[in-house]
């Protein structure tokens, strides 16, 4: 699947395109099929997200998993500071990145 990601304009937080808005959680990301360019052009004007782009991902039993490790680290947070990730209570969260 193709999903869209960028950083929130004001906070810089990593966000994912949900079909109507931008979410902090990669599991909310939707497959944009071949509409990526169109949505990105529209969203650039909406000033919610910065420097957005399309990436490859898969959806499996655990949710949406970006194809590249860099995007998985963006989705989770720094693997060396589990306390600062989106899943601070899950000690194994970092394993999802690998």
């Amino acid at each position, binding site marked *: 699947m193709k999903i869209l990601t960028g*950083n929130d304009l004001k*906070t810089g937080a990593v966000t994912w395109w949900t079909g109507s808005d931008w979410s902090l959680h990669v599991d909310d990301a939707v497959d944009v099929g071949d509409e990526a360019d169109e949505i990105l052009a529209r969203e650039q004007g909406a000033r919610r997200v910065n420097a957005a782009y399309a990436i490859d991902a898969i959806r499996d039993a655990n949710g949406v998993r970006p194809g590249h490790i860099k995007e998985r680290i963006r989705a989770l947070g720094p693997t060396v500071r589990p306390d600062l990730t989106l899943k601070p209570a899950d000690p194994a969260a970092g394993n999802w990145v690998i």
Partner: protein
Amino acid sequence: MYRYDSYDQTMVDARVAEFRDQTRRRIDGKLTEDQFKPLRLQNGLYLQLHAYMLRVAVPYGTLSSAQMHALADIADKYDRGYGHFTTRQNIQYNWIKLEDAPDILADLAKVEMHAIQTSGNCIRNISSDQFAGAAADEVVDPRPYAELLRQWSSFHPEFLALPRKFKIAVIASETDRAAMRLHDIGVKIVRNAAGELGAAFYVGGGMGRTPMIGPLIREFVPLDQLITYSEACLRVYNRYGRRDNKYKARIKILVHELGADEYKRQVEEEFAHLLTLGIEPPLAELERIKTFFVDPPFEKSASDDLDRSDPDFALWVDRNCTPHKQPGYIAATISLKAVGGIPGDASAAQMHLMAELTERYSFDECRVTHAQNIVLPHVRKADLYALWQQLDEAGLATPNLDLIGDIIACPGLDYCSLANARSIPVAQKISQRFAETGKGDMLGELKLKISGCINACGHHHAGHIGILGVDKKGTENYQLLLGGSEGADTSLGKITGPGFDEDGIVAAVETAADVYLAQRQDGERFLDTYRRIGMEPFKEALYG
């Protein structure tokens, strides 16, 4: 230390106001990201993996306690309670909100700090020896010259759009503690046979994709021509440095392609021309700057005695303290490399504590080192035990300066959008492994440096052991380099062979260390043994 005059303060305050307006216009949609990006970068604000990242300049690594407190307050108020000290002696914050950035810059300006020229193709923060003003082996304190260069390079209209970024280091000791020859310009303050002070210029060093050791371009530039000669070096680069290819745009490529002799000839020609224009600031300005760097009021009769009866303290003294030019004093390095910790990271609480100790024990001055540690440069030996106890309580007394646990590591793929691989987990695993096996103590001086990509912010080329993260078909892979050094005997590390995965690189470092332990002769450091026996025995053990 240097204090802003009204010009400095006015310039910095004006820049804060300007950036506040630019940020407002970006948030209001009056500026596109393409328009805004160069403006935010000129104020040190990057967009990294998880958020905006702010890089704050620490001129030649020197901080007062008020400044360190302010850095801690920023970490608490606007970030997530910590900061990262970098190999450029700066500090970076990883979780900055765009809407907060102008307020942060305003807070910095109140303590005479800023983030100007910490990004972009301009002259960056000037770096220096962390023991400047304290080192027993320096001919003079290099910081007044670094400060003069800082003033010259700040907002220099001709050098704000160079072909590429430009880094200058200034030292004044035979022992190079600032990786001077791996800078675009390395300035070494020297004394000639007549006893006069001048500057030796090494130009065209650098790390990154094409590492080069800067050749000596001129042995002696009189100090009243320091700025003029620097200007000549920059002008030749600005005129002929390549702008068509970012990978060939650094001055090292120009010097290499022209040859050091031809580059020098062109610089001398430009220098002769510039001398006719009288651009050198009056010596009175240098004298004014020097007044900020006079020795603190050392206690003349301070004792050299140290009670070493506490073995942990004695070990820390032996490992982390450096002789001082003033009897009765010592320079103490606070290791930001706790076993298994994140190299260079400090929490706000640790920064506040370091600020308090700076005020109490080091004449209100501390230094950030390019090895991502903090130095209290002027500690009375009589106060050293009390200082150590407070550091120890806060987890800041790891006795590992220049040992394998004192790893330089860039933020890598955990934070950096340019990274190929993570640096920090590798550093953590290596430091843990060598602490657990006790081998770290047996190895003696061994400088290990890790970069998450070829940009080499982690100085991997200059590590006795270097590690470079690469992307191997979407997975992290690590190349091992041996034999780099950054000191007076600067050399570039060589790649051992095929790379390793994360666990594999940790094991490979241990294998290399074992080869050294088996082969070392009396008094040899890892680097000495490597230089004597060469790469083959290491290759054999790693891949044989």
